């Protein structure tokens, strides 16, 4: 490479030229909107009936408003709960499956088939999946029919009228959509572990659960953290499933309204000041999480 250093210089400009489309489009469609969103958060700007109020500069009032009226806390809490009850079973099941798929002694057959099936829900349109679950779990829907045919319940269980039912369905959908993806990521991590370690442990008479707990888990820690944080960033963005399932109402009684549903409601009602403030908070939250992942991964490479 170095022998042609002189010719390298003349090629340099092409590096910059090839970067133009990315940066042009990024600036126009992402960076400028992001900055103007931030700018909006400092202004009073909303619709009151048919009259448009603002924009008037009000400093940080939009922020104090959503912090003090409890909206941010309520919807943040909903989002966190919905994420947690989907994520905890997801990571446990994925760890188990990944350990089985990579276990050399277990030698599972049809593992290609199983991987294909468990990953499939990840590619499904979340809106259509939620609509499907709405139809399946409706009062006279197939699930209630089946449960009644088998004599498990006597009359239809109205899933979407109870907090547990609604949150449970959302968590179930998130679980089904993401556990296959997580399994494959964890598998990649597990296959990166030196097999000599497993062999040595086996020779020393370690049981498979001991190997899993004392070798696999500690060595998998970086990728576990990566999976958890990217999942949390995804969880903060949760929207399609609860929006369609509850028809944007967050029923019952706003217990399934997520942060992005709240943002969406404010954007629809043209409440730009509050939307802006909420966006800034969400941006800071995801940025902190991303930076954490970024520096951890970089540290590992060094």
């Amino acid at each position, binding site marked *: *490479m170095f022998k042609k250093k002189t*010719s390298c210089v003349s090629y*340099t400009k*092409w*590096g910059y030229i*090839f970067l133009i*489309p*990315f940066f042009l*489009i990024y600036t*126009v*469609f*992402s960076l400028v*909107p*992001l900055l*103007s*969103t931030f*700018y909006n958060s400092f202004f009073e700007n909303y619709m009151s009936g048919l009259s448009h109020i603002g924009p008037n500069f009000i400093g940080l009032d939009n922020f104090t408003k959503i912090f003090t009226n409890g909206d941010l806390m309520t919807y943040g809490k909903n989002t966190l709960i919905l994420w947690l009850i989907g994520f905890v079973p997801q990571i446990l099941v994925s760890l188990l*499956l990944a350990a*089985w798929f990579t276990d050399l002694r277990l030698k*599972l057959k049809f593992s290609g088939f199983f*991987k*294909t099936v*468990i*990953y*499939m829900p990840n*590619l499904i*349109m979340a*809106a*259509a999946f*939620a*609509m*499907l679950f*709405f*139809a399946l779990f409706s009062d006279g829907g197939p699930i209630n*029919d089946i449960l009644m045919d088998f004599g498990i319940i006597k009359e239809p269980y109205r899933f979407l009228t109870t907090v547990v039912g609604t949150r449970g369905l959302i968590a179930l959908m998130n679980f*089904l959509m993401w*556990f296959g993806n997580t399994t494959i*990521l964890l*598998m990649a*991590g597990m296959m990166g*572990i030196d097999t000599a370690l497993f062999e040595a442990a086996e020779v020393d008479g370690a049981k*498979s659960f001991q190997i899993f707990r004392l070798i696999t888990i500690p060595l*998998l820690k*970086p*990728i576990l953290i990566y999976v958890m944080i*990217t999942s949390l*960033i995804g969880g903060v*963005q949760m*929207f399609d499933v609860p*929006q*369609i399932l509850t*028809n944007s109402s967050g029923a019952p009684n706003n217990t399934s309204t997520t942060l*992005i549903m709240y943002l969406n409601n404010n*954007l629809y009602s043209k409440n730009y000041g509050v*939307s*802006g403030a909420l966006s800034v908070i969400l*941006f800071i939250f*995801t940025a902190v999480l*991303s*930076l954490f992942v970024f520096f951890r991964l970089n540290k590992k490479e060094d």
Partner: protein
Amino acid sequence: MTNKEKKEFSGLLIRRIISYVVLIVLSIACLFSFYILLVNCSRYHADIQKGFSFLPGKAMVKNFQSLMSDANLPVFKGIRNSFIVAACTALLTTYFSSLTAYAIHAYHFKAKKAIFTFILMIMMVPSQVSALGFIQLMRDMNLMNNLIPLIVPSIAAPIVFFYMKQYMESALPIEIVEACRIDGASEFRGFNTIVLPIMKPAIAVQMIFAFTSSWNNYFIPSLLINEKNMKTLPILIAQLRSADYLKFDLGEVYMMIAVSIFPVILVYLILSKNIVQGIAMGSVKG
């Protein structure tokens, strides 16, 4: 066989049985809802209301026809719009992400490291946090009810870029780049004729991901589009959900969901091997 070996063998057998049972249960959980969907989209409204059946009906063609001719729900146009957006997105995002990755991979310039770091940093910023500014800008640019804002921003896709960059590191040695320079090809032609063909496997995987995520995208399109004929499928699904559910022909409702879901499943099943392999590659190296 000694006693100890026997014990070990039966232990392994039990573990194997448990893992198969768990895998089968999970597979059923994944497939069950789609199976009911397949059954119900082929049944008459009256049959669906009567109760559940494990066997498909005979109304699939009829349900499809009545869905396509539904005056309130422009499904055919929805499929067309969704397809245009998803196909253009898949093409643009893979081409330009490869180009961007190539710029970082093959050239040496001062700002290279800073630019690479910058792209990695913005990788995880969710599009929702700039949605407000985005819709205001689209309104100012007169692009509401237009498919362009759903397509063009995909040219700058940090995640696709990162995947392409990773792939280039393993599949595109710098010697190849230099060889085409000696042949006197211009840099841009060299990229199109030599680099892109080498990137084919990565492009194929990312095209599928870009197509499906664009096909499934709901948040931004629903904020930009309210004209009937420009709606994409997820917006129509939301419209179906907010309409009075009981007034609808249930066969049609299931068919509408099937139309949104099954094309993706079909493509996935044909190409699943490449996709499952491709997922882990774009993420961190364990």
